[in-house]
């Protein structure tokens, strides 16, 4: 187990180093000049030179890279070129929004997918199965942004039940939750369609096994068989997909945040790339990398918990 952890930790750090080098290189190779983007078309050459100096863009590339890494190691991610405030402050402002959305989206995804998936498996070959699987196929095919627009038109414009977008923070919890309903649904419906299909096929697999037949022969109720015997044994593939989906949810918020004009990390990274705001892009990509790698790491740990047979191998 400890060897497993050590190996994963080294992999984790190597990934982060690789990501930092790639982002830094790409942002520097990409045509574009932060000073020019900030000062615009009428800027004079001396004003551009002064700003470049100000932003530290005249320092050698390697010095800038190692300066950034040294800062990041002690939690200083530098100052945003375009916002002119510490990057950490920008991220701290936006993280609650994106995390709230991703976590809420994940919970709703699990609720919908497990219920629908188990239902379809238990009605295998019957109309209930066909209908739910047809709907999930539809869910996979529908682009999230289009679904978002439909939800807004129905619930915000016509029915006026919920706001069409925006998020003013958690200081007003009722308003915050109302703002999150539509984006969460838009995010979760598409993701749960994928997961429901995985849940169904994995559950069907388990239902064909001997112990399920034994349980049924012992006279246990269908509900008990499904939720106590089938689901736990069907979890390994489900957890694998969930791990990947959590990463997709965090990055998928980029689209959702744009449609619902939510002040989250997705919109920030979009804007920062357009502005060639290197410190902000660098920190955000690292953050997303940490989230993705951590999600995979947690999935690996969960495997061991779910399936004790794996413990012997590690």
């Amino acid at each position, binding site marked *: 187990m400890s060897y497993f952890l050590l190996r994963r930790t080294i992999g984790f750090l190597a990934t982060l180093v690789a990501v930092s080098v790639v982002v830094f290189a790409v942002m520097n190779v990409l045509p574009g000049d932060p000073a020019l983007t900030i000062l615009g078309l009428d800027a004079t050459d001396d*004003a551009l030179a002064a700003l470049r100096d100000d932003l530290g863009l005249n320092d050698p590339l390697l010095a800038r890279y190692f300066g950034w890494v040294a800062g990041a190691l002690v939690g200083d991610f530098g100052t945003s070129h375009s916002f002119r405030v510490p990057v950490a402050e920008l991220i701290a402002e936006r993280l609650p929004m994106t995390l709230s959305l991703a976590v809420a989206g994940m919970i709703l995804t699990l609720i919908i997918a497990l219920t629908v998936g188990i239902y379809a498996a238990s009605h295998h070959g019957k109309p209930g199965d066909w209908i739910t699987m047809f709907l999930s196929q539809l869910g996979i095919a529908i682009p999230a942004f289009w679904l978002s627009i439909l939800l807004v038109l129905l619930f915000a*414009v016509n029915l006026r039940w919920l706001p069409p977008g925006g998020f003013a923070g958690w200081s007003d919890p009722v308003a915050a939750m109302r703002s999150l309903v539509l984006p969460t649904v838009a995010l979760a419906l598409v993701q749960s369609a994928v997961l429901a299909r995985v849940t169904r096929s994995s559950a069907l697999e388990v239902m064909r096994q001997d112990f399920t037949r034994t349980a049924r022969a012992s006279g246990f109720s269908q509900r008990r068989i499904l939720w106590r015997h089938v689901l736990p044994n069907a979890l390994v593939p489900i957890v694998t997909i969930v791990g990947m989906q959590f990463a997709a949810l965090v990055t998928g918020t980029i689209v959702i945040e744009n449609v619902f*004009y939510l002040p989250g990390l997705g919109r920030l990274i979009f804007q920062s790339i357009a502005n060639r705001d290197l410190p902000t892009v660098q920190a955000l990509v690292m953050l997303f990398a940490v989230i993705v790698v951590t999600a995979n790491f947690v999935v690996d740990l969960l495997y061991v918990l779910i399936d004790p047979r794996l413990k012997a191998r590690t």
Partner: protein
Amino acid sequence: MHIQKSIQFTAFALAFGLSVTTAAAADLVIGMQQEPTSLDPTSDATASIDGMMTQNVYESLTIVSENGEVQPNLATSWEVSEDGLTYTFALTDAAQFHDGTAFDAQDVIFSFNRAMAEDSVNPSKGIFKPIDSVTALDARTVQIKLKNKDAFFLFNMGQGDSAIVASETVDTNNAKPVGTGPFKFDSWTRGDRLTLVKNPDHRDAAMVALDKVTYRFISDPAAATAAMMAEELDAFPGFPAPELLEQFEADPRFRVNLGSTEGEVILAMNNAKPPFDNIEVRRAISTAINRDEIIDGAMYGKATPIGSFYPPHGKAYVDLTDAYPTDTAKAKEMFEAAGVVGTTMTLRVPPFPYATRSAEIIQAQLSDAGIDAKVENVEWGFWIDEIYKKQNYDMTIIAHTSPNDMGNFARGPKYFYGYDDPKMTALWEEISTEVDADKRDMLLKEGQKYLSDQAVHGFLFQLPLLGVFRNEVQGYWSSAPVLYTPLKGVSKN
């Protein structure tokens, strides 16, 4: 007391789950597509900074009115010397900064010296170039001496780039702006909204009808439409999508405004690069393009065609849209004569709907005339570096949104036009130093005719200002001669 009560009511309403959607009448919510990164117009060119801050939070010596006239502001009056080189400004004694500090001549001197300094990062540092010295004759009088005459000096003094800032607060203006204007900065949730409140101590406070103005940042056109329809917003003065306006025109709750901006949309050609250094090729391109088709297709008919580089609402405008009537066969002959038929021309387009849509139509029109035009969509950071700075392009489409910008054609071969014409440079020199308005207008007309004759670029249309307003909103500028819109005269009944 009034504010206190409304806060208590809101708290009460929320506690009991009531929905508080109807804001007080004097609260205005404005949708805005572009989100600012900084709130200081003297160090960042982002247009939305001027749109929200200039002449609302910050003030300048002068202010430009909706029809483009220069009017007094922090300077209540001024005198210009006989030779046009010395401007003496009398300053108001009724202004103070929002943090309570007084406004006087020293603030003007500080602001100008900062903009003119060697390490200045002012986005329009060029407008300060003619200034020789700025001195205070007393606490209420400032004298500015110019090195050479500048016809646009008073106009430029009314821009956000020349906002008067205080030395005490200048370093934090990017996130917490402090000015002397009729509105005070209240709060900013980056990515979501920015709120201004009325400044009760302002000298014109009696003329300000709004108590509170909230800007909401919505970049997606479909989301902007939904937010207007759901009555989350009172106004979207710079509506991003002409194709979505029809539903607002049909809805009695809204008023759609079709105004003008200072933005000339051009099919820019790299005049330094063959074959665009050949005037006949440029004329052939002007002959090949059909502006009506472009305006119908790209702007849903909502734009005014231009035949040269000057806004149609301007006093000195000459209509030159008939200089090169569309004639595909003739254009083809001209291309053949110049030996460019069958060659490929690349059209590198920035990510603005007016540009990407126009590009596709122009591509088809050029192809009809025998030119294989390739469209490359590039993002803004790329455009501004590769095309604008490094001149690495054949053709592009861009709106020039600055006022009085015919001088672009006198910026020499290093400017991205690659256009170097001593005659135009001399003409602009004359225009920019001619202080007599009538004589200047004559010269501007001459300039328009010359640029059209030289077919320097394909001149397409004037970028419209498309706005959607709820009927209750009155007094918002319908056209934009500058990048800002004063909220002083805006009301909501």
